[in-house]
């Protein structure tokens, strides 16, 4: 990982400029959304069920085409960029639903993560070895099938695979959903560490409390629209916001 000097730590990596998106017809799931994701920053996106939080990430990854507005990476529009090229451009994505090849070994899952540089065998090998030592839990299970791992181990394999090619921005969709609390704590720790290394982290999370704790900047979405934004400290001090959050927690039953 390259060391970043303090003056460009907060550089804008990606931004949503007035983005609207829809699944069918006129039912918009994102409305005129403007978001900024900065390097060295954990940007949390919270909101009630159905607010379009995951849709933000899916739209970023090209699964949904914006009806209007623009998504930019380093100031350049992503319109017309094929989905699979994003990995090569430094965008890593860990979706909410499983994204592993469960019938392949841990190492092979990582190997496929190196697909864009597959012709450079030496570099691939080096990256794989580095990752397997960096995540000892995966190193120990390298020959096991991904399907035999526990939920938490799988999550780390997904994160490790997303980090293989030194991405500039990583999108995490509910990274701690359905995994053991011990692993969840590790995940949040890893997220902070990644931001400290200079990565732009975008975190969509249903667990509002830890999300606010780990995030540097928060966007609150409701019905596909941005209702509030600000630093974590600001949101926590805002009474109306706390009341609001309490309401979602009741609705989502947790």
């Amino acid at each position, binding site marked *: 990982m390259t060391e970043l000097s303090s003056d460009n730590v907060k550089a804008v990596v990606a931004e949503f400029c007035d983005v609207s998106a829809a699944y069918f017809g006129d039912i918009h799931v994102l409305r005129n959304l403007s978001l900024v994701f900065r390097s060295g920053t954990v940007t949390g996106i919270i909101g009630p069920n159905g607010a379009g939080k995951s849709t933000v990430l899916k739209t970023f990854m090209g699964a949904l085409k914006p009806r209007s507005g623009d998504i930019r990476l380093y100031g350049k529009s992503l319109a017309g960029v094929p989905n699979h090229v994003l990995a090569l451009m430094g965008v890593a994505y860990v979706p909410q639903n499983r994204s*592993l*090849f469960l*019938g*392949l070994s841990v190492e092979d899952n990582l190997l*496929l993560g190196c697909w864009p540089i597959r012709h450079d065998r030496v570099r691939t090998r080096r990256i794989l070895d580095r990752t397997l030592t960096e995540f000892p839990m995966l190193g120990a299970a390298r020959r096991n099938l991904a*399907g035999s791992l526990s939920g938490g181990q799988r999550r780390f394999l997904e994160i490790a695979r*997303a980090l293989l090619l030194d991405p500039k921005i990583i999108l995490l969709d509910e990274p701690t959903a359905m995994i053991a609390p011990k692993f969840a704590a590790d995940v949040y720790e890893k997220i902070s560490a990644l931001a400290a290394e200079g990565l732009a982290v975008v975190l969509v999370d249903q667990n509002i409390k830890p999300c606010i704790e780990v995030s540097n900047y928060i966007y609150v979405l409701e019905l596909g629209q941005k209702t509030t934004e600000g630093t974590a400290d600001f949101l926590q001090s805002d009474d109306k916001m706390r009341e609001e959050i309490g309401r979602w927690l009741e609705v989502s039953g947790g």
Partner: protein
Amino acid sequence: MATLVPNIILNAAILGVIYGFLGLSLTIVYGGMRIANLAHGDIVVAGSFITYALTAKFGYSPIAALPVAFTYLSVLGYGLYRIAGKRLQNSREPELASFLFFYGVSLMISASLLFVFDADARAISFQFRPLSFQFLGLRVPHARLVAAGVALALVPVIFWALYQTIYGKALRGAIMNRDALRIVGIDIDRLSLFAFSISFGLAGMTGVLIALVFPAFSPFSGMDYTILGFVVIVLGGLGSPLGALAGGMVFALTEQLTTLYLGQSTGLIAGFLVLVAVIVVRPAGLMGQVEWRA
């Protein structure tokens, strides 16, 4: 009877590999893309007819037909994917749409073969010398031995490619979790195109083996092979290349042994009954892992 059993087992082994190939090439396309290639058997038969043309018209050895069939038919697969692949995959029910589309393709291939070669059943006229070998009290036709040799050589190559190279791993990955391909930066469209070409080429080579082993083939045998291919992959476990080979072996062995003990017409019944039994006991097939597929 005593000498028959080893003979049957040898036959079943060769047939098993051929059935396995039928399933293997089908599963690459069906597992990874949800495209049910109903014209698969017709591609196989086209491979047999290419062998027939090369041996009967030009006097080449059937071995020479292997690369020819592979090349011609993978080009056909490439073209078909270019024309229809993307549309079929993007349709709301890719299985149904591809089923219909390839039924049409199957008719077109049968019709073309019918036009060029007439409706009569054909057999390759090439004769290996000597015609058969005698060992351990068995008499094995030379052509069958050649087919076994080719199959024995192909199996390791194919499985090496599928299990050891990054391309093979990507193909198997596509069967397990298509959506994840995009995330790791794989161009699904190009991978599918590649898989389609390989699948068709492999089906063509299977046709060459079939021309060597079976006494005759006609432009309308295609559907039988398509059915066998699907039976084999369902038996072995959808999307598992190793399962396809196992499924082929089990089906062939059942068919051959039943034919030996209970008579000609019972072989196929027993094979299908084994399929039904396996599916009832183990719905994912012999080597399938339902929970490992997205």
